[in-house]
């Protein structure tokens, strides 16, 4: 079984799609998660294999007319009881310890190093908007990051609840309106990865994907530079993004050449979060992503 599991993992890993999954990690967090998965699977095998192997053997040996001796009164054995409770308990103690350590170590709120790149993420129906406050740019549906540098994502949504996930880097975290959650990640190699929303939010849900472009620091700087000369993300453009639609539809509606925009209002993220806390009711027409949303009416 252990061999089989390894073989299975290798076969799966050779599969092209796995470039997207965390079994072929592109960063330290996903690598640790994969490590943890393998450890847990292997250790549980101690408790599981006896069942997988034992059941067929017992069924054969003790079948009616089979060789096994019949002991209809056998209903207790102290050593067996001890093993039955003890072995799983011991395994759980071990797994619990690992769970504790790894959960503390991989708290998504903990930065992965000093001076992380700050990216603010706003979930919209059905696209992700990334803001780079320090660089003064924004980008729809594309998250570009430099390889080797820790990244700190701060997430919220300007519509219903969503969950931002990049499997090859760090997995996922929920994003909710009026709230900010964190996800720290880092990519070790250059490449293109896929990210997604995993929390169902309507008909465009399946298409709410993200291109995660991991670049060399130089390429990344150039990419950022290009963004500062792109059309700017003003209030009207932002409001237009709130209309439910895919990334492609949004880019077309704003007639953008590529995903980048110039971020002129550094407080955009904070104001999106604050919108839900100002004590006034929000009419349907002011709720991005809702069927009744009207971009013109948003202040």
């Amino acid at each position, binding site marked *: 079984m252990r061999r089989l599991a390894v073989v299975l993992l290798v076969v799966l890993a050779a599969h092209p799609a796995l470039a997207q999954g965390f079994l072929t990690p592109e960063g330290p967090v996903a690598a640790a998660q994969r490590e943890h998965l393998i450890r847990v699977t292997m250790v549980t095998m101690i408790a599981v294999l006896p069942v997988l192997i034992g059941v067929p053997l017992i069924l054969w040996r003790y079948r009616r007319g089979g060789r096994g001796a019949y002991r209809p009164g056998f209903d207790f054995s102290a050593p067996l009881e001890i093993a039955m409770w003890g072995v799983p308990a011991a395994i759980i103690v071990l797994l619990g310890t690992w769970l504790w350590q790894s959960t503390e170590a991989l708290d998504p709120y903990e930065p992965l190093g000093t001076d992380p790149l700050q990216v603010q993420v706003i979930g919209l129906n059905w696209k992700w908007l990334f803001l780079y406050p320090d660089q003064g740019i924004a980008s729809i549906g594309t998250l570009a990051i430099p390889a080797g540098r820790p990244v700190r994502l701060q997430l919220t949504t300007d519509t219903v609840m969503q969950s931002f996930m990049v499997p090859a880097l760090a997995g996922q975290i929920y994003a909710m309106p*009026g709230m900010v959650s964190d996800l720290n990640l880092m990519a070790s190699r250059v490449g293109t990865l896929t990210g997604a929303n995993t929390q169902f939010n309507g008909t465009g849900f399946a298409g709410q994907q993200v291109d995660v472009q991991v670049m060399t620091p130089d390429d990344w700087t150039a990419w950022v530079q290009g963004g500062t000369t792109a059309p700017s993300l003003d209030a009207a453009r932002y409001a237009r993004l709130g209309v439910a639609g895919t990334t492609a539809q949004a880019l077309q509606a704003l007639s953008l050449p590529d995903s980048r925009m110039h971020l002129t209002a550094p407080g955009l993220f904070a104001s999106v979060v604050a919108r839900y*806390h*100002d*004590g*006034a*009711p929000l009419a349907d027409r002011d709720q991005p992503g809702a069927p009744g949303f009207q971009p013109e009416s948003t202040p």
Partner: protein
Amino acid sequence: MTANLHPGLNLGESHGAAHPASENRVFGFWVFLMSDLITFGILFATYAASGTPMGLAGGPGPAQLFDLTSVALQTAFLLASSLTCGMASLSMKAHAGAGRIALWLLVTALLGGGFLMLELSDFASMLAQGAGPARSGWLSGFFALVGLHGLHITAGLLWIGVLLGLLAVQGLSDRVKTRLLLFALYWHFLDLVWIGIFSIVFLRGLA
């Protein structure tokens, strides 16, 4: 079986067959009340968790809305009604006759009704100040919790009506006795929940 006769009740051995027969019902009703307790518990937790600046959403809070005097009066009404309800059970145990029981029930209903009127007038004045359940998450929690208790009281009043009808039509039969016992449990339970409400909602809010 007899050693395990069901409690909570005021029926004694003197009540013969009615006693064991009511056993299952009373126990079942206890279980139901415990389920109801969880319902209230969730609303309590929701209410308590929403008393944050975010939950208040800039709207009025306890200090502006709660009226200590009215709450004290409501508490007095409900406690008194619990006592009169106990007197109804006691009259049953003492074989004091259907009339005496009906009288105590009527008093209980009047006190319960008084409680309800006060509560509704508090609700009305909150609504008049623009502090309805639609104003904030905290107010939603408040109206759901206190309102659910009020609904229970209303159901209790209807129940008294049915009991009075039963007493009139069937007299003090064994079945009616059991129903009276269940009602008494229910009514005392509502008083217990009210202790939670005036302590956690009103007094904590005003302290």
